[in-house]
């Protein structure tokens, strides 16, 4: 690694109350007297802070998640109100409606408009960063923009020959989906919001000539003329075509990314997959995620399994394959410091696929690699690069 000029300030754009920042600050204590400045998303979005003035020469800049904060969410949505959308996804909430918005936990709230608003602020940040000399940007805004759109991310991985599931494209409604699936004789797909995160608005859908059913943590709540969708912590099985169509149609208005449902490997009476964090392109932390449903996300009350046992079981040769696919996926974003990737394994650990790349996928509490948590590993990595 080539030596990097000494950086004298660590600037984080994030939500200060979020535990991600707490973990980060704790990890930064490993560095001898670092100077840390937190730029809150809300201040950046409202123009209370000028990033241009916060970042000097030779800063390290980290961009962290804007999530889990309703005020920030609303501000980003406001930011997206007049943004043009090349994907033409129609769902929109107006400025007036946003001003009157009552925060509801778990509500799937116009993710496409959110993305447009987020992209707008990312572009602004990018312009400022490009004009600075000698800074080290750990999460290039242009990469975040791609990572936050599953369609773009999948396309980029495909271009780079990363093993990813096949997709079903140009689906704007439930009827279109069913027709395309029948035509292609595809029976099972995962329908995901193109701009959602971690199991938000994900539907595992299967059909044949006789039946259809969908598994999802999405909850449908009729509200006057409209149906609202909420992310819950429980997986439901929908078997009524009317309900399934309603959910899928609402998701389509936000833009969907649809993939073939690749069967997952089993482990101790559960389905399983892997979440692996790469730092500077190398796989470090790993979690074996177990689930009794098609969704393995940890926050859905799913469990973790014993990764070492899994590695013993699949053998080192197969495990090398897993690590290689992680390295390849990370190399698609060579300037991105840490990526959280979801790796799919088929039954018997025969094949591996990259299911998802997460821009802020390093929140893995209690998962250690060489005695360090994900934040400590990232800081240690920077120290090894003589960044401080």
């Amino acid at each position: 690694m080539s030596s990097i000029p000494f950086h004298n300030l660590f600037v984080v754009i994030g939500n200060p109350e979020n535990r991600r920042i707490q973990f980060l600050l704790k990890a930064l204590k490993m560095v001898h007297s670092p100077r840390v400045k937190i730029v809150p998303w809300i201040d950046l979005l409202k123009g209370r802070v000028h990033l241009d003035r916060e970042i000097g020469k030779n800063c390290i800049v980290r961009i962290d998640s804007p999530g889990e904060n309703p005020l920030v969410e609303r501000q980003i949505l406001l930011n997206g109100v007049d943004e043009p959308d090349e994907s033409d996804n129609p769902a929109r909430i107006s400025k007036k409606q946003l001003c009157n918005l009552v925060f509801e936990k778990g509500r799937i709230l116009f993710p496409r408009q959110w993305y447009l608003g987020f992209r707008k602020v990312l572009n602004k940040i990018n312009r400022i960063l490009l004009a600075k000399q000698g800074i080290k940007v750990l999460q290039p805004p242009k990469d975040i923009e791609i990572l936050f759109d599953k369609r773009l991310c999948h396309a980029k991985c495909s271009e780079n020959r990363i093993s990813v599931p096949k997709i079903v494209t140009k689906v704007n409604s439930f009827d279109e989906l069913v027709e395309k699936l029948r035509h292609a004789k595809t029976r099972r797909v995962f329908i995901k919001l193109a701009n959602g995160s971690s199991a938000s608005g994900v539907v595992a859908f299967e059909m044949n000539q006789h039946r259809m059913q969908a598994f999802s943590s999405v909850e449908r709540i009729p509200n006057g003329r409209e149906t609202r969708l909420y992310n819950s912590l429980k997986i439901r099985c929908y078997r009524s075509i009317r309900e399934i169509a309603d959910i899928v149609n609402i998701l389509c208005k936000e833009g969907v990314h649809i993939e073939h449902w690749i069967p997952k490997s089993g482990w101790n009476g559960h389905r399983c997959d892997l979440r692996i964090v790469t730092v500077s392109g190398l796989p470090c932390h790993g979690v074996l995620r177990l689930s009794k449903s098609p969704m393995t996300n940890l926050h859905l009350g799913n469990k973790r399994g014993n990764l070492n046992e899994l590695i013993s079981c699949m053998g080192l040769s197969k495990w090398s394959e897993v690590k290689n696919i992680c390295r390849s996926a990370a190399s698609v974003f060579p300037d991105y410091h840490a990526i959280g990737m979801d790796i799919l394994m088929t039954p018997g650990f025969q094949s591996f696929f990259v299911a998802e790349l997460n821009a802020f996928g390093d929140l893995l509490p209690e998962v250690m690699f060489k005695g360090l948590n994900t934040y400590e590993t990232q800081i240690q990595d920077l120290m090894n690069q003589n960044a401080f």
Partner: protein
Amino acid sequence: MTIDEHAKVFADKPIVDYNPMAGIEDPLKYCYKIGFGYDAWDAQEPLTNVIAKFLNDKCVIDIEAIVIGSWEEMGSMEISSAPIVEALVAAKERLPKLNGIFIGDVVSEECEISWIMQSDMSPLLLAFPNLEHFRVRGNEGLSLGTLNHTGLKSLVIETGGLSSQVVTQVAAAKLPNLEHLEIWLGTDEYGGDSTIKDLEPLFSDGLFPKLHYLGLRDSEYVDEIAIEIAKAPILKKIKVLDLSLGTLTDKGGKALINCPELSGLEKLDLHYHYLSDEMIDQFRQLGINVDIDDKQDADEDDDYRYPAVTE
């Protein structure tokens, strides 16, 4: 719980995937699995073509056990196991040593258990009188016909809902050498329309004289089963009682706890249940070999309990 892993062992042999390129390499050591795996939807030919290659292998004559995995268009519910049954029956002369058949080693991630299309198995059982192990997964379209078989030692039927028709066929069967009977009753929602009355013949000790293991698993009326079986003569005869994977509550638990015949069992399997902690302690203190793991919490919202395998 769903079925998430393929079987590793069947008829006392480790299972390996049949690879048509490599052929049958060790028919005495292994049980071969013929199936398309997770890309069954992409299959370019019917599984019966692969089975035909298998049956033309010079080593097939020594084959003792076969497992059938996903066949083409698994999950479409358009193609049943009938062509496969027909292929095996037609080749019975080439399988003189066959003593084990398992049709449907399909995991939930490949196909929902209730979407597996089975068929009438009676021609298969008729064609192979020396068959000792028969295992089948999936209720849809399944029939065992009039079940009279002298060879059968082990019969396992795994479903998310087993039809009363099949339960009745089992309860009326003549299986003089049967040692292991395991049926997954499932829920009504997925075709499990049997009732305790259908099971009654199984509780007498005359039905299967050599029965050692009785498994009435994955049942939504296991409480009733426990109550009836606690007073049944069969309990004096068998050595292993398996009521796991169902919705067993303290109601059924009490009947079992108070049953004196329990001490004669080598094992009582109750894993995956809805018993209270107090009841669990009582079972542990009984001094018998009992599996009481995997306690389930009833759904907080609506107090609904469900067996382990349904979809």
